[in-house]
C-alpha cells in the first residue's frame, strides 16, 4: 500500500510542475500593473519605476520565472503586496479556517443528505421523495452568497439568535493556542468552553450555507445509487430470506451504494472549497478564499500563485485519499487497477 501511495504521489509531480508554470504565466497575463498600483495615487513615473525594480518586474519573464521556481524550491512562496505578509505564513494561518468551515459544512450536508437520499430511495414517489427533490433543487439553485446573506438577515439581524458575522470568534474572545488550527478542537484542548461555544456559534451559519448548497449532489447521488442497488438481485434474495428491512437497507444495500457517493463527496468537497470564496466574503471569514480574491483584484501575483498551488496539492491529496477509501470500502477495487 505504501509503495502504491508513493507511486501515486510521483504521478502528481508533473501535474504540479504544470500548475506552477501555468499559474506563473496566467498571473503575468493579468491586466494591470502592480507597480503602478502599489506606488500609490500620487506616484510619479520615476516612483513607479523604482517600485517595479524593487519588485523585480523589470527583469525578463524567464528570469522572473527561474527566480520564482528557485524560491518555491526553498519553500518561499513570496510576499503578498496587499497584506504585506509572506504568502506561506498567510496560507498556513488561513487554511485551517477554510478547512474547518468546509469540513463542517460537508459533515452537516452529509448528515442531512444521506438519510434524505436513502429515505427517498426506499419510498420513491412519496412525500419524502418530493421533499428531497424540492430542497436539493432549491439549495443548489440559490447562489451561496445569497443564501448566506438571507441567513444573516434572518438569524442575526431580525431574530438575533446568531452572533455577529465577524469571523471565527466573538471579537472579545482571544483565539486558543494553535495546535491543529481548528478552533473547535483547539478550544477543547485548551479547555476553554466559552470560546468553544463562541467558535461553534460563529460556524453554524456559514457551515449551513455551504451545506444547503451541497445537499443536492449528495442526496441525489445517494438516492440514485440506492435505487439501483435496491433493485438488484442480492437485495431481493435478502428480502426473500426474511431479513428485517433495516438490515437489508443498511447492511446490504447502503454499503454497496456507498462507492458512487464517495466519488461525489470528493467532487463536492472540491467545489465547496470554491464556493467558500463567497461564503468567506459574506461572513468576514479569515480563510484562503477571500485572501485569494483580494489578491486577484489588486494584481498581487504571489498569493494567487500560492493559492492555486496549495489547491492543486490539496486536490492531489484528496484524490489519493478517495482512491484509498475505495479500497477500504470495496475489496474488489485494487489500487493497482
Amino acid at each position: 500500500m505504501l509503495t502504491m501511495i508513493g507511486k501515486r504521489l510521483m504521478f502528481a509531480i508533473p501535474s504540479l510542475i504544470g500548475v506552477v508554470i501555468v499559474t506563473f504565466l496566467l498571473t503575468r497575463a493579468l491586466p494591470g500593473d502592480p507597480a503602478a498600483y502599489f506606488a500609490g495615487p500620487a506616484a510619479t513615473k520615476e516612483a513607479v519605476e523604482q517600485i517595479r525594480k524593487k519588485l523585480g518586474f523589470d527583469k525578463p519573464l524567464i528570469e522572473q520565472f527561474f527566480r520564482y521556481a528557485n524560491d518555491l524550491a526553498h519553500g518561499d512562496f513570496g510576499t503578498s503586496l496587499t497584506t504585506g505578509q509572506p504568502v506561506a505564513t498567510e496560507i498556513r494561518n488561513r487554511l485551517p479556517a477554510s478547512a474547518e468551515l468546509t469540513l463542517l459544512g460537508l459533515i452537516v450536508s452529509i448528515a442531512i443528505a444521506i438519510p434524505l437520499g436513502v429515505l427517498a430511495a426506499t419510498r420513491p414517489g412519496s412525500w419524502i421523495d418530493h421533499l428531497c427533490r424540492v430542497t436539493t433543487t432549491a439549495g443548489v439553485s440559490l447562489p451561496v452568497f445569497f443564501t448566506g446573506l438571507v441567513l444573516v438577515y434572518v438569524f442575526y439581524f431580525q431574530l438575533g439568535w446568531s452572533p455577529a458575522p465577524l469571523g471565527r470568534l466573538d471579537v472579545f474572545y482571544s483565539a486558543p493556542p494553535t495546535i491543529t488550527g481548528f478552533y473547535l478542537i483547539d478550544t477543547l484542548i485548551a479547555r476553554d468552553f466559552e470560546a468553544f461555544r463562541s467558535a461553534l456559534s460563529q460556524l453554524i451559519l456559514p457551515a449551513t450555507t455551504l451545506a444547503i448548497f451541497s445537499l443536492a449532489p449528495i442526496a441525489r447521488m445517494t438516492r440514485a445509487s440506492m435505487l439501483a442497488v435496491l433493485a438488484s438481485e442480492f437485495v431481493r434474495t435478502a428480502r426473500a430470506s426474511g431479513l428485517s428491512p433495516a438490515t437489508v437497507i443498511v447492511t446490504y444495500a447502503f454499503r454497496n451504494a456507498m462507492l458512487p457517493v464517495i466519488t461525489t463527496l470528493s467532487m463536492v468537497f472540491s467545489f465547496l472549497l470554491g464556493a467558500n470564496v463567497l461564503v468567506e466574503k459574506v461572513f468576514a471569514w479569515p480563510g484562503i478564499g477571500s485572501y485569494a480574491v483580494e489578491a486577484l483584484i489588486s494584481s498581487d501575483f504571489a498569493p494567487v500563485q500560492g493559492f492555486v498551488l496549495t489547491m492543486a496539492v490539496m486536490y492531489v491529496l484528496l484524490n489519493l485519499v478517495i482512491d484509498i477509501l475505495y479500497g477500504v470500502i470495496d475489496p474488489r477495487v485494487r489500487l493497482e487497477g
Partner: protein
Amino acid sequence: MKRRDFLKSVSGLAAGAVLPAAPGVISSAKADARSETLLIVSEGGPNNLDIHGVGTNVPGYEVSWNCYDRLISHEMKSGPGGVPYYDRDKFKGELADDMKIDDMSVTFKLKKNAKFHDGTPVTAKDVKWSLDRAVSVGGFPTFQMSAGSLTKPEQFVVVDDYTVRVDFLKKDRLTIPDLAVIVPCVVNSELVKKNASEKDPWGLEYTKQQTAGSGAYKVTKWTAGTEVVMERNEDWVGGPLPKIKRVIWRMVPQAGNRRALLERGDADISYELPFKDFQEMKANGKLNVVSLPFSNGIQYIGMNVTKPPFDNPKVRQAMAYAMPYQKIMDAVLFGLGNPMFGAAKDKATEVAWPQATQYFTDMEKAKALLAEAGYASGFETTISFDLNFAGVNEPLCVLVQESLAQLGIKATINKVPGANWRTELNKKEMPLFTNVFSGWLDYPEYFFYWCYHGNNSVFNTMSYKSAEMDKLIDGARTAAATGDKSAYDADVKGFVDLAFAEVPRIPLYQPFVNVAMQKNISGYQYWFHRRLDYRAMAKG
C-alpha cells in the same frame, strides 16, 4: 483501517452530527471590556503599519496617524454642522513644545518628557533620522515631502538633543503644513536601526509589521486582512490622554453586514457604506451619521484635450451643458455631496477652491455648441471609470451616457479594474472618464498645480497645457510664498476663470466623507486625510 470499521465510523459520524445551537454568552468581564473598547468595521484594512513603506495603502495611514506623532499638528475648529474640523491655518505642537519660524528656517523645541513605546526618550536625532527617512525612501512619502519643498536630508539639522531646525530650500507656503501631514512622523531610530539590514537600511521590513513610534496608540495584534488591535499608550504626551483604551478594527467585506452590525449595536463605527445606506440610516435616526465635504476634493468628468473631438473647447463646453447634474446628485449620491455647478450668472469668482461653475443642464445650448463645433450629428466615444469605486462611478456614467445620447453622442462604458486604473490614467489615452482628486493640503494653487499645470503630472488626467494657465498657477505659488495677497487673489481668480472657460474637466460635485456611529460615540473629528482619529473619541 478495516472496511467494516470505516463503515461504522461513517454512519456514527452521520448520526452524531446534529449540532447544538448555542448563542454566544458574554460574561461580565467581557462586558466591561466592551465599554472601553471601540469596535470599528470597514471594508479594507492596512497592508503595512508604516506610511514610509512600499505601497502602504490608505487604511495603513490611519494606523500611522494614531500610532506615531509628528512635530506639529492642526488645531480644531467648528466645521459644517458643528462637527470639529481641522483648522488649515492653526498649528499646535505634538512632539514639539515650541515652533519658531524665521526667514529661511523653522526651529522646533521638543517636549522633554516624550517617550517611545519602548520607553526610550524622543530626541532630536530621532526626528532627523525620521525626516531623512521620509525624503529618502522614495515612492509616496518622498513625493509628499517634496510637495512642501522638503527634499534633502541636509535640510534637517540637529541643534541639540531637544532642538531641531528645518532649513528651507526656497520660500514655500506649503512647507509648514507639509510637516503636519501623516508622512513626517517620528520613528524610534535606535530600535529600527537595530532591526535594519544592509539591503534595507531604513528598516522598512521591521516597521511594516509593528509600530515603533511615540503615538497615543500602539498596535498589539495585526492579522492582515482580518483585524488590527491597538492599545492606548498610557505615557503619551502629545495631547490629553485618549479615553478609548482599546481599538479593535475588523475587516468586514460585505457592506450589508457592516450596516447590520451597526444597526444591531454590535459595531461602534463604520465608513465605506453605500450612499443609500447612509441616507437611510440618517433618516431613521438610530445612529449618528456624519457627512462632511472632502477638503479640496472634486469628482469630475475629464476629457483628453490632445485628441478630437475634445481638443475643441466648444465641444467641451457642450459637454458641460449636457451633464445630468441634478440627477447625479439625487440618484447617485442621495444628496450626500456639494453641487459644483449652477452658480448664479452674476456671482463673482471667489478666491477659494472648490467652487461651483456656472454650467447647468441645458441640452439646447449643448446642441447649439456642438453644431458650431461641427459635430451636429454627434460622435462616438468611450467613458471610463475605476471599478474600485463602482458604487458611485457606475450609475454616474450610465446617467452621463443617457444624457449624451440625446445629443447623438454614443458613449460606450469602459469599466477599468482598480489595479489597472492608475496605469490607464498614466497613459493619458482615455478620451472621457470620471475620477476624484482631493489634496491633503487645502490650497487652491496646490490643487491646480497637480491638476491643470503644463508639467503634466499624473493628475493632469486631461493632458491640458496652456501657457497662460501655467503663468497664473506659478504666479499664485510665488505670491503665496512672499505673502503678496493682491497678486495671489488675482492669480487664483484668473486660473479658476480660465479652468471654467476652457473646461478640460467638468466639476460635478464635492464628495462627502460619511461615517456612521452609535449614538454613544462622541468626539469624531474631520481630518484632511479623512481617516479616524481615535485620540479624541469617547464611548458612553
